[in-house]
């Protein structure tokens, strides 16, 4: 997509879709730069919840009545939309869960207990979020396997050669974050998967921080499992996605027992439902799933404003939307990195050229926690802490970092306010 097309959409139009961005905090207009923790929601997603509860709330799948049919139709449509978002082969490879953490734990337990044995190795990178470490540690303890960290460079990239040399027949599974929530690094998952497959290992890609920023294609990278944290990608809280290859999901036992995941139940033996239901025990987060559908629609609508209009498919609209988002956010990231680096005492954490959405840093004499509080007093929301990446903090030799994380609605003016607020912090503490 050429630049002329990309300029057809201005960020102020996007901002108008997010009501919360009007908020005033401590007397200043809110600058929301905590998108890595959770994104804000467009009006269409907020309305989808309201509409659902006012006019079609009912349990799905089992009801012959009117409301249940409407709810079921919307619910099923959302699955197809997510299939398009991920370019999965089949809609039934899309499993709805309670969140990215739940998705990862599902794989770890249902796939892991079947396939990981004593003596086997599980590789996860040093920059993983706790969800992609602790869940494997729990499994490793249960079955007697080992979790080995894949080292990273000072710039915050995977040490690819080391990774390759760590792969062996003992490697049963690799857990790798697509985009690091602490560094912003975009990892070369396609290459990493190819190498892992060569030794017969399965790869789980944690896409929590990728999905809001880039077009995903699970088939192109050949991911075995791919997980989403939907509240980080403009959808409601309490909903996640697990994509898994049909063949892998088919062989896995159920993770949880309950309604909807069975075929027949008796005290003499129970048989399980087909995909995706086998892994969706109990009443799902119906409103959340419908809101997720609305979030994908919202992303597609961004693309529609840029592309040929009504004749474009949802996939094409998503292509266009993410072209715009990547372009917009790359500009902000470059601009912000430069401006922050110019502040004396600032150390940027995560300086890979392959980066998306994250501006993380430390400031010599000031603890990130204090940075966060002072910025908040200026109406600027960032996050300070270990970002659920303690092993990474240890590797970086810092107790914590300050992290500004972007979304499609952020602006240069907001980056400017961030930068001058950090300068104020510096003055205050020196």
């Amino acid at each position: 997509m050429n630049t002329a097309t990309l300029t057809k959409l201005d960020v102020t139009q996007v901002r108008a879709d997010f009501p919360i961005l009007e908020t005033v905090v401590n007397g200043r207009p809110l600058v929301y730069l905590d998108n890595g923790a959770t994104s804000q929601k467009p009006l269409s997603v907020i309305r989808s919840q309201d509409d659902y509860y006012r006019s079609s709330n009912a349990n799905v799948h089992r009801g012959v009545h009117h409301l249940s049919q409407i709810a079921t139709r919307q619910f099923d449509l959302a699955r197809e939309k997510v299939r398009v978002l991920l370019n999965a082969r089949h809609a039934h490879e899309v499993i709805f869960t309670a969140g990215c953490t739940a998705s990862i734990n599902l794989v770890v337990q249902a796939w892991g207990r079947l396939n990981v044995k004593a003596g086997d190795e599980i590789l996860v990178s040093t920059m993983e979020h706790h969800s992609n470490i602790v869940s494997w540690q729990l499994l490793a303890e249960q079955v007697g396997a080992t979790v080995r960290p894949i080292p990273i460079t000072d710039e915050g990239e995977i040490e690819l050669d080391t990774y390759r040399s760590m792969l062996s027949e003992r490697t049963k599974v690799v857990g790798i974050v697509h985009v690091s929530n602490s560094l912003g690094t975009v990892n070369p998952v396609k290459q990493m998967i190819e190498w892992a497959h060569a030794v017969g290992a399965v790869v789980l890609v944690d896409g929590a921080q990728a999905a809001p920023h880039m077009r995903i294609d699970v088939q192109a990278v050949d991911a075995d499992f791919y997980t989403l944290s939907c509240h980080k990608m403009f959808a409601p809280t309490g909903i996640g996605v697990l994509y898994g290859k049909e063949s892998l999901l088919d062989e896995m036992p159920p993770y949880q027992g309950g309604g909807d995941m069975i075929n027949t139940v008796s005290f003499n033996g129970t048989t399980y439902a087909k995909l995706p239901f086998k892994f969706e025990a109990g009443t799902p987060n119906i409103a959340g799933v419908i809101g997720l559908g609305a979030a994908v629609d919202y992303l597609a609508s961004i693309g529609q404003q840029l592309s040929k209009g009504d004749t474009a498919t949802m996939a094409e609209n998503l292509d266009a939307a993410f072209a715009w988002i990547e372009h917009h956010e790359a500009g902000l990231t470059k601009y912000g990195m430069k401006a922050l680096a110019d502040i004396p005492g600032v150390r940027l954490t995560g300086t890979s050229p392959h980066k998306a959405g994250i501006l993380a840093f430390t400031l010599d004499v000031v603890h990130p926690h204090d940075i966060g509080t002072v910025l908040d007093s200026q109406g600027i929301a960032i996050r300070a802490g270990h970002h659920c990446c303690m092993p990474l903090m240890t590797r970086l030799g810092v107790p914590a970092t300050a992290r500004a994380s972007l979304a499609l609605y952020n602006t240069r003016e907001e980056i400017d306010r961030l930068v001058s607020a950090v300068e104020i912090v510096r003055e205050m503490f020196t």
Partner: protein
Amino acid sequence: MSVELRELYQEVILDHNKHPRNRGKLEEPTNSAEGHNPLCGDNVTVYVHTKEGRVEGISFEGSGCAISTASASMMTEAIKGKTLAEIEAMFREFQKMVTATGEAEEHPDFGDLEVLAGVREYPVRIKCATLPWHTLHAALQGAEAKVSTE
């Protein structure tokens, strides 16, 4: 009662429901299969006797709603004596009929089966109508298959 509901529960359907044809177990089936709809609990077993590529005998057993019972009953009448290829084609046509979103087309061979077109207004009931057909299909594929419409 609404027009759609009258379309769904036509006299013919209510009659097949009350007096199902070919119900029971076939003496010496060459093939059989069990079908199950876990959402509503309907289940049906279809027995067939094939000879030289033709269905010479067919029957069904099981418990289900009026739609699935009538569908099974009418199916057994419609396919008796037909070749496997003819049945396969009918199965596909039937699926099209009950899911078509546009205007209903005429299906020369269907006879009574036409009345089941009314389910298309009732998405959750479509599986009731197709369950016997899926089960028949599985039976004819060989293998003591278990079919589930979920």
